[in-house]
C-alpha cells in the first residue's frame, strides 16, 4: 500500500455512480424487445401463422414490412411473435441452469471433500459432451418440442454454473467474514444463503447474461436442425432454417429474424458487460 491508488479507492455511497455506456445501450436495446416479447401478438400486424398463398415470397413493402415467406405469412409479424419464444427460451433455460447449478455449486464449494468430489465428477461427465451434442442427445430421446429444448439447454449449462458457483464459493470460504460467521456458530444454511449467496450474485448475474445469450443461440441452433421449436411456430432459428431454400429469391425471410436475433444478443451482451462494470469493477473484459 503505497501510492494513492485511486482506481481502487473505495467508492462512496453518496457519490452518484455513472452508468456505464454499455449498460445504458444494452437496456435501450432490450427494453423494446421486452415490450415486444410481452405484447408481440398484439403489436404484430398479422397473426403469425396466417397464410396468404396469393402473396407468398413478397418482398418488403407497405403491406408486409419485411416481406412474406413461402406460405405468404408476414415475416415481420412472425419475427415479433418469435421474440417471446427466444427470450423465454434463453431466460427459462438459464433459470433452470441456475436453479440446479447454484445449489450444487454451493454445496460442492462449501462441503468440499467427498461431496465436492462426487458433484464435480458428475459435472465432468456432463461436460465431456459438447453442448450441442448434449442438447441433441436429450432431444433425441423424446419427440422434439420447445419446452424440451429449453430443459435440454438448461441441463447443458448446469456444469458451467456449478463450476462458477463452486469457484466463487471456494474463494469466499477463504474470506475472513465467512470465518467470522463460523466463529459465531452460524448454521451452514445461514452461511450459504446469507453470507455467501449475496456475494455470488454479482458475478453470477454477469455470467447469467452470457448464459442467456448462449441459450438463445443454442436454442436457435437446435430449432435450426429441427430439434427445437416445431412448425408452424415462429421461432427465429426455425424461421431461418425454413428460409434456407428460398434465401436467394427471398433473403428477407432469413434477414428479419437474423436481425432480431442480432439485436437481442448484442443487447444482452452489452447488458452483461455493463453489469460486469457495475458489479465487478475488477474485471476488465469479457469472454
Amino acid at each position: 500500500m503505497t501510492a494513492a491508488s485511486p482506481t481502487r479507492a473505495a467508492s462512496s455511497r453518496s457519490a452518484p455512480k455513472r452508468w456505464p455506456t454499455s449498460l445504458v445501450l444494452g437496456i435501450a436495446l432490450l427494453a423494446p424487445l421486452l415490450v415486444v416479447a410481452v405484447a408481440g401478438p398484439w403489436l404484430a400486424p398479422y397473426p403469425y401463422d396466417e397464410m396468404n398463398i396469393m402473396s407468398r415470397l413478397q418482398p418488403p413493402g407497405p403491406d408486409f414490412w419485411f416481406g412474406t415467406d413461402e406460405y405468404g405469412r408476414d415475416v415481420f409479424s412472425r419475427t415479433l411473435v418469435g421474440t417471446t419464444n427466444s427470450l423465454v427460451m434463453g431466460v427459462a433455460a438459464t433459470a433452470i441452469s441456475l436453479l440446479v447449478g447454484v445449489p450444487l455449486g454451493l454445496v460442492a464449494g462449501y462441503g468440499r471433500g467427498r461431496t465436492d468430489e462426487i458433484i464435480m465428477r458428475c459435472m465432468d461427465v456432463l461436460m465431456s459432451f459438447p453442448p450441442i451434442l448434449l442438447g441433441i442427445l436429450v432431444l433425441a430421446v423424446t419427440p422434439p418440442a420447445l419446452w424440451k429444448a429449453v430443459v435440454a439447454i438448461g441441463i447443458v449449462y448446469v456444469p458451467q454454473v456449478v463450476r462458477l458457483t463452486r469457484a466463487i464459493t471456494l474463494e469466499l470460504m477463504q474470506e475472513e467474514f465467512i470465518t467470522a460467521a463460523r466463529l459465531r456458530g452460524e448454521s451452514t444454511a445461514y452461511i450459504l444463503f446469507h453470507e455467501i449467496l449475496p456475494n455470488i450474485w454479482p458475478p453470477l448475474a454477469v455470467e447469467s447474461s452470457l448464459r442467456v445469450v448462449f441459450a438463445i443461440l443454442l436454442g436457435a441452433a437446435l430449432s435450426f436442425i429441427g430439434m427445437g421449436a416445431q412448425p408452424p411456430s415462429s421461432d427465429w432459428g426455425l424461421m431461418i432454417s425454413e428460409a434456407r431454400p428460398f434465401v436467394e429469391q427471398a433473403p428477407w425471410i432469413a434477414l428479419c429474424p437474423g436481425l432480431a436475433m442480432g439485436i437481442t444478443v448484442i443487447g444482452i451482451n452489452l447488458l452483461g458487460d455493463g453489469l460486469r462494470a457495475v458489479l465487478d469493477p475488477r474485471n476488465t473484459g469479457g469472454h
Partner: protein
Amino acid sequence: MTALVPLSAAASPDPTPATAAMSALLEVRNLTINYASPRGTLRAASDVSFAIRPGEVMGLVGESGSGKSTVAMAILDLLGEAGRIDGGEILFEGTDLRRLSAGQRRSLRGDRIAAVFQDPFTSLNPALTVGRQIAEPLVQHKGFTPRQAAPRVEELLAEVGIREPRRIAQSYPHQLSGGMQQRVLIATALGCDPKLLILDEPTTALDVTVEARIIELLAGLCESHHLSALFVSHNLGIVNRICNSVCVLYGSEVVETGRTRDVLARPVHPYTKGLVAALPRITTDRRHRLSSIPGTVSKLSGPPDSCVFAPRCPFAEETCRRLPQALRGDAAGNSVRCWKAEALSGTPWPEESTASRPPATPPARTAPLVQVDALRKVFGERRSILPWLRRDGTVAVDDVSFTIQRGEVLGVVGESGSGKSTIGRSLLALIEPTAGTVLFDGADFVKQAKEGDRDLRRRAQLVFQNSAASLNPRKTVGAAMERPLVLAGRQGEAERREMIAALLTRVGLPAAYADRYPHELSGGERQRVNIARALATDPEFVVCDEAVSALDVSVQANILNLLADLRDELGLSYLFITHDIAVVSHIADRVLVVYGGTICEEGPIGRVLRPPYHPYTEALLSAVPRLSGAEDGPEPERILLEDSTAPPGGGGCAFRGRCPRKLGTICDERAPPVQTATDGHRIACHIPLAELAERASVFPELAALH
C-alpha cells in the same frame, strides 16, 4: 537550529541551488503529480522536491497514500495512464528527464537508473527463468547476446549472495524463496552498473530475518558500488538502518527532509514527531500507552489550501488551516514544511493519558482459561485411489502445548510458515486439530464447537488481520454486528441497535457508522468495527491474528491502545499472533516464539527479550530494525540467518537448517529438550542453558530498565 529560509521560493532564480543540483545525481524539483479518477483529480504529489548526491541513500518515508511510490514511479517514467505529471522537474545528472523523449527515458531505465520493487514474487515473470530475466537489461542496454550474458548473470547472482548461481539462473521464480527472489531482482538491477537505484519497499513482503539480510546486502552494495539510492519505505527502522538522508512525505507533500540521524532523532515537523512517537519499541514499558496520531489522511483533491496535516495536528492553529505551507531549509540541509517548526523545537508529541491505566499486575494463578495440550495439525494429507496422489501432508503445528490465564495476553511470534495462525485457528476450532486437545474453561472446545455450542463460541472470538476481508462487503456495519447479538438471543431490535451504538462508541467510532458499508471506512475504522463485532458477544478470550499488521504505524498505535484498554477494562485474555516483536513486546505478558510449527522458546516477555536466548529468538530479535541511534545507544552486531527454507521435517530440531549455532547430528536426529530457565521461561534447544546464557543481550538498553 538556525533560521529557516523558504527553499522552494529560492529554487530556480538563485544560482547556488543550481550548482548544488549539478553535484546532485538526482534532483526532484517541485514535482506535482495528479491522478485522474472517476470522481475528479486526486493529488498524488504536490511540490515535491529533494536531491540525492552520488553515493547517498535517501529514504522516502510515508504512510499509505502519502505519494511516496508515485514519486518513485514518476522518476522511472512508469506512472501508468491515470497518473500525470503536472509540473516540476526530475533532473538526473543535470538533465530533466521530462524533456527527454520516451525512448531516451527508456534507455536510461534499467541502465543508469535501476529499480527493485516491493513484492519480488509478482515482479518476476512466472514464465521465464530468472537467468533470462536478469540478462534482459544486459542484452537491451549493453549489447550482450544472451549467450554472452550468461556468465555475467552468474557473476551477478554470486554477488548478491546466491550460492549456486548456475542452477538458480535456470530456475523459475516460483522455485525460489522470497529472499532469493529479492536477490534476483537486486541482481537484475545491478546488471548494467547503474548510478541510481530506486528501491520501492524492497523488503516489505519479506520475513524479518530475511529482511535483515537483504538490507545488509543492499547497504553493502551501495557502499561497494558507490551507488545512490532512493529507498521508499514505510518502516522508519529500516530507513534508519540504511539511509543517509530521509524525506518524509505526508498527504502528497514533503513535510520534512534532512539527514536521517537528525530527522528521526530530533523530528521537527509535528507529523514526524507523531510518527516516531507512535512506533512501538521493545524498550518501552509494555503498560505504557503508545502515542498515536488521531484521525486519518484527508482526501486529496484540488490544490492544497492549508497545511495538509493540520486536521490531525495537536499543535495546529487557525493559521495552519488557512495557509498552505512552504518547505523551508536550514543551513545543515534539513528542511521542514511547518511555519511553527522553530517554536515547536524541543516540544515532544503529546503523551497519551495513562491515568486510567492500572499498574501491571501478574495474572492470578487460577485455573487457566485456555489449555492447549500436544496440539498437532497436518495439512494437505490426501487419500486417493491413485497411488501417486497419496500424500503425507505437511506438519503445520507439531506437539504444541501452552496455557493462557484469565486476563493474560499471550503473544505468539513467528515468521511466515511458523504455524502461528494455525495455532490460533485451532484454538477456536476453525481448524480441526489432527491431534491434541484444546480446553476452554475446562471444556473441550473443539468437541463442543462441533456440537454447536454457541455459548462457547460466544466466549471466544477472533480479530482478523485483513480488516476488509473480514467484513461481508454486502452488509452494513450494523448488520454485521447485529448477527452475534441475534445469536446471543437478543430479541429486541431496539435493544440491539442500542447495543451496537454502544459498542461502536466503545471502540471509538460514531454510532452513525452502523449504517455504513465496509468499503466506506478506512482500514483503521474497519479494524475497530472488527473489534466491536468481536466484543458484541461479550467474550472472555480473543485471538488477535496479526490484528495490527496491515495498518499504518499511526493507526496501529491507536488499535494497540484500544486493545490494551479493552483488556484492562473488560479483563479479556488475548492470544496475540504477530510477526512483529516490537508489537508483541508492547502488549503481551508472555510470549511463545514459534518456528516450523514448534515452540522454541516460551516465557514472560521480559525474560524472552533477555538472555538466555534460543538461537532463533536471538536472531529474530537482532534482525528487528530499530530507531536506535543516539537515543538507544550503539547498535549491536546482527545475527544473520540463511534465507528461509522449508523446515526439514522428520525428527530433530525444526530450526536446524538455518541455525547458526547448530551442534551437529544431535540437532538432526533428536527433538531438542525443553530447558527451564526461570519463571516459566523455557527454551527448547540442545545447547545447554548456561551456554545460551553466555550470549550478550540483543537489547543492552533493557538492562537499565529492570
